[in-house]
């Protein structure tokens, strides 16, 4: 059975701190790993990682995939209160029809 595990479960930091969120996966016929940010509503797409070792960057957020160790990290630098959310990672299978989500990391950024 496919499994995605995220750590830590929750994290409280102060504005300006840097955080690293972890995601390990066991997905049959793995294709890609996706990161989403979920506030009160829909998960919003952040990154899709398919190749190992290539960092993707968007502003203060960056992510990288290690397909040998079956692991991905999401980094957020200079955190802001608006970064407070649940961050979800999900493994996508080769058929592209099923995302297996981790339980999420709840990040709270205090002023």
């Amino acid at each position: 059975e496919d499994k995605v595990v995220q750590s830590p479960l929750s994290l409280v930091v102060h504005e300006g701190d840097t955080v690293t969120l972890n995601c390990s996966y066991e997905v049959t016929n793995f294709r890609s790993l996706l990161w989403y940010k979920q506030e009160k509503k829909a998960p919003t797409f952040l990154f899709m990682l398919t190749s190992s070792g290539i960092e993707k960057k968007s502003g203060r957020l960056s992510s990288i995939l290690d397909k040998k160790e079956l692991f991905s990290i999401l980094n957020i630098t200079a955190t802001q209160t608006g970064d407070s959310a649940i961050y979800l990672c999900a493994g996508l299978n080769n058929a592209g029809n099923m995302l297996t989500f981790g339980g999420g990391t709840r990040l709270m950024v205090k002023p």
Partner: protein
Amino acid sequence: GAGVSQSPRYKVAKRGQDVALRCDPISGHVSLFWYQQALGQGPEFLTYFQNEAQLDKSGLPSDRFFAERPEGSVSTLKIQRTQQEDSAVYLCASSLRRTQETQYFGPGTRLLVL
């Protein structure tokens, strides 16, 4: 529309009632997915459509759950004889092509079964 929309946003049902949850995907998106998200957990896959064809329903928890997408656009998730354990947020997502990897999510329907 600009994004995936779902209705109702909130639904309270008495145990044993039937409910129907609606999803309007992004116009032109071929693939449509339903997920169930329990409190404090990540979304779990329920079922997947490609156009009107339901290609995978392996995640539906019981035969009380039924989904359809008769014209390949709007989809309805129906839950019959609701139970308290059905209480969750039901998320719908769509993606452009069969092999499109980015799924765009709707705001979800929060179902509470009393």
